[in-house]
């Protein structure tokens, strides 16, 4: 959709993400920056049925097609093989061989054989081994000293990353905004070429994801440690997670932009009852809602077990979202005999989501506190969705969520890692308490709206190097209307 720009655009921000279905946070940030006069171009992952170029709101989205860069794959593979061979040679040289610790013919040292002849043969092999090691030592020294400084100028990017780099260079950004670790190396390479500020936006602590193998986790942490220093500002989703990351990497310039919701089309004053309209059997029931990605790490099986222990018949647990784990939960509910009180609801589109959230009576955040760092210190999207929808919250003792819920009286905190405690928390829900929570949500919920967070984002941008140059900060207003 074409728009009349009432002023010349300030600066160009190129955002980088591997997302195919673009995260709401990215679009919110893009929209905020566009509203402040920046031109925002988002380089995102490509999908089969998705257009290469589209404009979402005011964000220009260019999907980088990895396949296009794989045309030269055989050549690139050959290049990578050569590079790796050279890389192996370029490893720091080993300490000069010590006879006492030597191995011969790739085997560990054996007791000296008896007899002069045998000793002579052993000595010859030992001299040969030392000779080879010395040769390797000298070669490595030469490569390390001479060739490596030359080759270090070649960055180690994958083909897809090269695609992002190439497109990023084409757009000549004034600011690079990287979303999550997979794009950080590209962002750093772009910064090195264009000498522009780099914003590193951590939607979570990427190397601490529970599904990663320990080896991959270590590798990603090394990668993050290597590149994060190049970022002019690092952004996290909450202060607790930021403290952990800041301590880990000794970050200096960082800030928080929470995952708040921007939903101008949603009217929180209106009464919504969409679940009961869609499922008439829910009339007169108290609806406990979980929404979002349905996965094992969400502690939902505990919620189903707890429902089996709840004696109240007016409670219904709604699990609304997407994910293959839904099937497992359905089978579990069947095995526990609670299919009448546990209902799996298909995911809703983003523009309808809040109206469904507002149709429930309690929003549930059951994530376990005994899992990984990201889960423990989570500030999940659903927290902000529930607040926006003015839905009282029942949450596990997740430090950040607990602080929000208790400080502002938005709901109840309980130990949801224990099935009896979980069942007790569900049993204890009182309707009068819920209406008090709703009042507090109506009064103080604005503190967790996107309108608050966008101010933080713009403040971080204004503090970037070069942003206070004369003429750069103020949009040129149009005299003629």
């Amino acid at each position, binding site marked *: *959709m*074409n*728009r*009349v*720009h*009432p*002023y*010349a*655009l*300030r*600066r*160009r921000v190129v955002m980088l993400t591997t997302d195919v279905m673009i995260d709401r946070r990215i679009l919110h940030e893009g929209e905020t920056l566009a509203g402040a006069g920046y*031109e925002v171009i988002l380089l995102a992952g490509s999908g089969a049925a998705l257009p*290469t*170029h589209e*404009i979402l709101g005011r964000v*220009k989205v*260019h999907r980088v097609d990895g396949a296009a860069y794989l045309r030269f794959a055989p050549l690139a593979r050959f290049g990578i093989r050569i590079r790796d061979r050279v890389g192996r040679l370029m490893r720091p040289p080993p300490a000069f061989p010590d006879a006492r610790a030597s191995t011969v013919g790739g085997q560990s040292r054996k007791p000296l054989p008896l007899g002069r002849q045998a000793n002579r043969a052993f000595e010859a092999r030992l001299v040969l081994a030392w000779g080879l090691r010395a040769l390797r030592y000298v070669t490595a020294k030469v490569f390390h000293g001479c060739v490596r400084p030359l080759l270090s100028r070649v960055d180690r990017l994958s083909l897809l990353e090269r695609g992002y780099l190439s497109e990023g260079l*084409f*757009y*000549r950004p004034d600011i690079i905004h990287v979303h999550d670790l997979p794009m950080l190396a590209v962002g750093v390479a772009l910064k090195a070429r264009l000498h522009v500020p780099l914003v590193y936006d951590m939607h979570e602590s990427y190397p601490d994801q529970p599904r990663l193998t320990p080896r991959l986790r270590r590798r990603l942490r090394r990668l993050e440690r290597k590149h994060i220093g190049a970022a002019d500002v690092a952004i996290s989703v909450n202060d607790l997670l930021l403290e952990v990351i800041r301590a880990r990497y000794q970050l200096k310039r960082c800030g928080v932009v929470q995952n708040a919701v921007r939903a101008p089309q949603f009217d929180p004053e209106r009464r919504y009852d969409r679940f009961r309209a869609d499922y008439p059997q829910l009339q007169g029931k108290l609806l406990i809602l979980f929404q979002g990605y349905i996965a094992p790490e969400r502690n939902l099986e505990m919620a189903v077990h707890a429902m089996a222990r709840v004696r109240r018949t007016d409670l219904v647990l709604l699990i609304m979202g997407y994910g293959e784990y839904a099937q497992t939960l359905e089978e579990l509910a069947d095995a526990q005999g609670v299919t009448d009180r546990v209902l799996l609801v298909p995911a809703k589109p983003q523009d309808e989501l809040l109206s469904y959230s507002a149709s429930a009576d309690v929003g549930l955040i059951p994530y376990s506190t005994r899992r990984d760092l990201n889960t423990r210190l989570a500030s999940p999207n659903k927290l902000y969705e529930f607040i926006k929808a003015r839905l009282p919250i029942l949450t596990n003792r997740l430090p950040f969520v607990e602080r929000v819920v208790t400080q502002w009286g938005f709901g109840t905190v309980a130990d949801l890692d224990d099935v009896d405690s979980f069942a007790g928390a569900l049993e204890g829900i009182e309707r009068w308490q819920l209406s008090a929570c709703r009042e507090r949500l109506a009064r103080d919920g604005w503190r967790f709206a996107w309108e608050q967070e966008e101010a933080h984002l713009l403040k971080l941008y204004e503090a970037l190097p070069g942003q206070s140059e004369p003429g750069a900060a103020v949009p*040129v207003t*149009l005299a*003629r*209307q």
Partner: protein
Amino acid sequence: MAGVLARAQRALGVDARSYCDQANHFQYPADYTASSTSERLAKALRFARQFDVFHFYFGRSLLGASLLDVRPLALLGKKIFFHFCGCDIRDEKATTHTYSVSACANCFPKLCSPNRDQARAAAERFGRVNFVSTPDLLEFLPRAVLMPQAVDFELVERIMREPAPRRDPRRFVIVHAPTNRQIKGTQYLLDAVARLQALHYPVELSLIENRSHADAVRLYRAADLAVDQLLVGSYGQFAAEMMALGVPTIAYLRPDLVSHYAEEPPLINADPMTLETVLRNCLEGRQDLGPLKAAGPSFARRVHHPEPLARRCLEAYAA
């Protein structure tokens, strides 16, 4: 345009030929064309021997966008001239960030020539004189010279001799012929016309796309008003042809660019924000279109006729 200029230069006694190395859907005439890589290579070798002056358009040379032959040609002592017409040289980022109304702000995916920087560097290094066809491009190439678009007056005159097309006096026909809708600001025109139609103005929009150049010019004649580009800030080939045909034309002329023209073009100035008002003024008769109809052909003949343009080119070649 190259074909028209080459023909005019031949008429002035110079052995000038035009060469198009890729198909153009407007079917602009060219003396030579090439359809395969081997043919392009063979022609490049032949032309390098045959000609003394090379006048390259759109940041491309005999070997296309690679510009690999420019340096060898220069080394052979050939005179090289570059002629830029828009997205082949326009710095979209500078445009977007400097001007409140610009084609580049709306252009996505970006249509800039991928070899723009390379072409600019080649032009600065090897171009004896570099021409631009519209004044908005002057800022992107130091020492560039404005060489306005050449209108094919042979075609215009031939079409003007044909019987006039039938017109419905109750309808007000606006013609618009975008090569690219985003750059020309077509959406603003569509919106403005839709709003006027909703207000029961007897306005009709004739969008001409994907036609050969000769067919398109024939259709332009039937219009009461033409709308050229609304975002670029200077007028294009379409407006030049419309002026030659005597059809009053709207285009967005950026105030700082008007002084680059030898004389003020007889156009109605409108940008996306003022377009609807300007159209309404034309429909209601508040804007007198008569003087524009009369002034257009003489202006086009003075500024866009191939003969003076060819003469200027030859002077540059000889310098």
